[in-house]
């Protein structure tokens, strides 16, 4: 299996084939106790030696399948009309991703009736947006297979406090 690693890197690079984007940086460089971040402070997933995903990424799996799935299909795979978000989360800049979720997106013409609503006022989406993002990044890099992650780490106290503050918050 010695070709696996370079082949995978090549595929990921191709998936994120924007100019100047050599590969996807999903390596965890820091944590604030709630979740992990890469070297550029973009949220990322971690998978431990037992194959368990971090709690926020698992939470992202659940929230994706409650909030996004009814248009974008199961497992970030896309539907007949809505794009596969596992690819969007790789191709798209994090801040653009957040902006589209918050503000929505419309492509309406004689040929297209694509409308994504704005979720900025929806706590069930906005409080879990980074969770959904890292879940989709994990799907997009094939770090986790389709379906429910088989193993997960526990929810940290910091995560629970941040979640409570966001859902009940100011």
């Amino acid at each position, binding site marked *: 299996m010695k070709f696996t690693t370079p082949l995978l890197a090549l595929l990921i690079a191709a998936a994120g084939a924007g100019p100047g984007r050599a590969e996807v940086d999903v390596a965890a460089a820091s944590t604030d106790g709630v979740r992990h971040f890469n070297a550029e402070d973009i949220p990322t997933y971690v998978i431990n030696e037992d194959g368990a995903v971090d709690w926020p990424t698992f939470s992202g*799996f*659940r*929230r*994706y*399948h*409650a*909030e996004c*799935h*009814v*248009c*974008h*299909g*199961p*497992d970030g*795979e*896309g*539907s*007949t*009309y*809505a794009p*596969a978000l596992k690819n969007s989360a790789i191709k798209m800049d994090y801040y653009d991703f957040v902006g589209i979720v918050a503000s*929505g997106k*419309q492509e*309406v013409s*004689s*040929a*297209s*009736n*694509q*409308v*994504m*609503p*704005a*979720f900025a*006022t*929806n*706590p*069930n*989406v906005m409080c879990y947006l980074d969770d959904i993002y890292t879940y989709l990044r994990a799907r997009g890099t094939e770090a986790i*297979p*389709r*379906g*429910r992650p*088989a193993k997960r780490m526990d929810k940290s106290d910091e995560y629970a406090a941040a979640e409570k503050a966001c*859902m009940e918050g100011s």
Partner: protein
Amino acid sequence: MKRSMLGLLAALLVSTAAPALANDSVKALQADSKQWAQQLGNYAGQRYSELNAINKDNVGKMQVAWTFSTGVLRGHEGSPLVIGGIMYVHTPFPNMVYALNLADEGKIMWRYVPEQNADVIGVMCCDTVYRGLAYADDTIYLHQADTKLVALDAKTGAEKWSVVNGDPSKGETNTATVTIVNDKVLVGISGGEYGVRGHLTAYNTKDGSLAWRAYSTGPDAEMLVDPENTMVLGKPIGKDSSLNSWEGDQWQIGGGTTWGWSTYDADLNLIYYGTGNPSTWNPSQRPGDNKWSMTIMARDADTGMAKWFYQKTPHDEWDFDGVNENILADIEIDGQMRKVLVNFDRNGFGYTLDRVTGELLVAEKFDPQVNWATHVEMDKTSDQYGRPQVVAEYSTAQNGEDTNTTGICPAALGSKDQQPAAFSPKTNLFYVPTNHVCMDYEPFRVSYAAGQPYVGATLSMFPAPNSHGGMGNFIAWDAAKGEIKWSLPEQFSVWSGALATAGDIVFYGTLEGYLKAVDSETGKELYKFKTPSGIIGNVFTYENAGKQYVGVLSGIGGWAGIGLAAGLTNPNDGLGAVGGYAALSDYTALGGQLTVFKLPE
């Protein structure tokens, strides 16, 4: 005929206009099988045609007569109407209407293009489908995605009047057709995933003014319920039946939307329809029976007053919306002819009720894989009478929030969704397009925000285990006995409405795009043809210039197009099986097209 005399008298009292009622024109049309004047074929919802020129001996030679592109992608549900040599074709959002002149090779006589704010697309759960137009008295009724109801002159397409039924900024949208009964247009509403409070609303055909509105939940007066005279399984419903079944004022965002089909019995002057799931999908957040979500409702067509209710799935824990069509038929049960209503619910039970009284006669599983309940209690002396007996292992409420309940059959899309079944009075069988899909379901806590999704559960779906591996069946059902007569396995869910004809054949479409014809006695396949896109539309038939035609809309989409596009995986199968199931995207792509068939010259 006392009742119809009274109806006539009432009509005369409220109106000085001529006593001819709008549905007189509909009744005349449904008696003429050359026309296809209602989405469900007739008021009884039977989707049956007396036309028999195309029959089981010659259907194998059927070929394409002509085609028509709708100019719209996305999911195409419902069917065109054919009235007096004109075919009326609808589309998904933006809900265009075409009138095609069948005497002039389908030339477009007029078209109507509504102006709608595209924001509504974003709040439509599960694609921008629309289940078609309705007709009465030279008027076409269009009910747009944004809940605007428009009356159009059937000859010219000119707008007669319009009225707005809901508010898309709160998640209120429309996907359903309307039903015209007497001098009223009956209109439902969608948005159960947005906490919308469901209702059925009647507008006067004359000018679109509001006649009455009956909510699915809330105070008796707003539900048009009479505590003493509205019946539930033979007993008066009692005071505050809905309010008592919710915690606090949760009924206000409690769902029970009305996006399915309505049927009508003119002799009884009763309309029948169903209500959808309670909101949210997290059952722990809404204790109680959540009445009257998940309910078959029988109401007086003129006043809206409830005659009887039957709640199929009290305190839903699986999103088994109760909106599927209630087909009216007169069949023999235990040696007695009965006026029945037959309903194939999302929850997997096929119900036969006395449609006069609401008495429950039969409740049996129409897919043997259904496992969330052992049975529906039929013992009238039991305090559980009429209730499904839930299996603890598959109860997402008993297992609780944040617990993944696995292996529930059927999945949330139900053993059958909106795709209407057919009934043949020749065979006395019901022909039912079904889903054969199971799920894992994990509820969790959500907050309500107006106009935003209010779901509160995550789910994974997979083909029914230990079966044929496919995700659908097309079955023939004996509603007197509650038994499957035959069952045809299908690779994908069957999401197309069936049509039965006096030619001893039954038609249906498949998600790959096949139109199929099978023998109505045996289920033997007699014909298939692959249309340009997957079929979630309903098959219809008509006669023009002495020839019988059969048609269907293609255009993949809807809930099926979302869930099955990439194929399903079974998380319980282990890693090796991932990708082992068929993906719809390997078979078909978007496209909106009508295909019309005939026999060769």
